């Protein structure tokens, strides 16, 4: 039997949505599903190392305001300039929920494929070197569509 497939667009760079994305990805991979996560736009933050991106003046401003890094993302509500992020991290830890960096590591350990959107990287002036090495490919929409059409489940997060 062919393994089942799941493809996911990770558009959001919010901590809470990222948590959902990585929980679903690791759960699916642990259930024998081949998972592809396509990171685009704000979602790229989750696979960036977090060095300051941008080459043009606007790009540099963007890189400063929207600095990448999985540990730097805040929740979609109640962020309160970073206090919410601290609060959620604490609460997740006290309830023994794995952190985002741990979940991302587990995902790649289980063979989840991480790919990134070339166009968003160009717009936001994010260089390839700022993506974590676990990102195997930088691609366009046709690659995602090919993956999605082979999948039984597709998600947009």
């Amino acid at each position, binding site marked *: 039997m062919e393994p089942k497939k799941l493809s996911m667009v990770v558009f959001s760079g919010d901590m809470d949505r990222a948590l959902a994305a990585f929980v679903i990805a690791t*759960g699916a991979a*642990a259930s024998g599903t081949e998972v592809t996560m396509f990171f685009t736009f704000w979602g790229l933050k989750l696979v960036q190392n977090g060095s300051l991106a941008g080459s043009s003046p606007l790009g540099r401003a963007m890189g400063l305001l929207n600095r990448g890094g999985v540990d730097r993302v805040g929740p979609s509500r109640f962020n309160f300039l970073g206090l919410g992020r601290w609060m959620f991290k604490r609460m997740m830890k006290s309830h023994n929920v794995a952190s985002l960096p741990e979940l991302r590591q587990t995902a790649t350990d289980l063979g989840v494929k991480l790919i990134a959107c070339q166009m968003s990287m160009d717009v936001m002036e994010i260089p390839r070197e700022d993506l974590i090495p676990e990102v195997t490919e930088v691609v366009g929409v046709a690659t995602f569509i090919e993956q999605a059409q082979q999948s039984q489940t597709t998600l947009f997060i």
Partner: protein
Amino acid sequence: MVETNVDVTLDLKGLNCPTPVVRVSQAVNGLPLGGVLEATATDPGVLSDIPAWTRTTGNELLSIERQDRVITFRIKRAK
């Protein structure tokens, strides 16, 4: 409960979704065919998730029971 030889035990107490399922899949995949895993957990979600996981992966759930907060289950590798 029928006596079964347990090959691997796993303590998942205190751990929350998705970690129990991830650890169970890693442990079961490390067993030979017919090997048995016994695990204990406290996440109530396990009561629904472990049966679902065995159905999805085609492994055999030998037993799952809850005593107070602790859930104990046994899985036989069939796939």
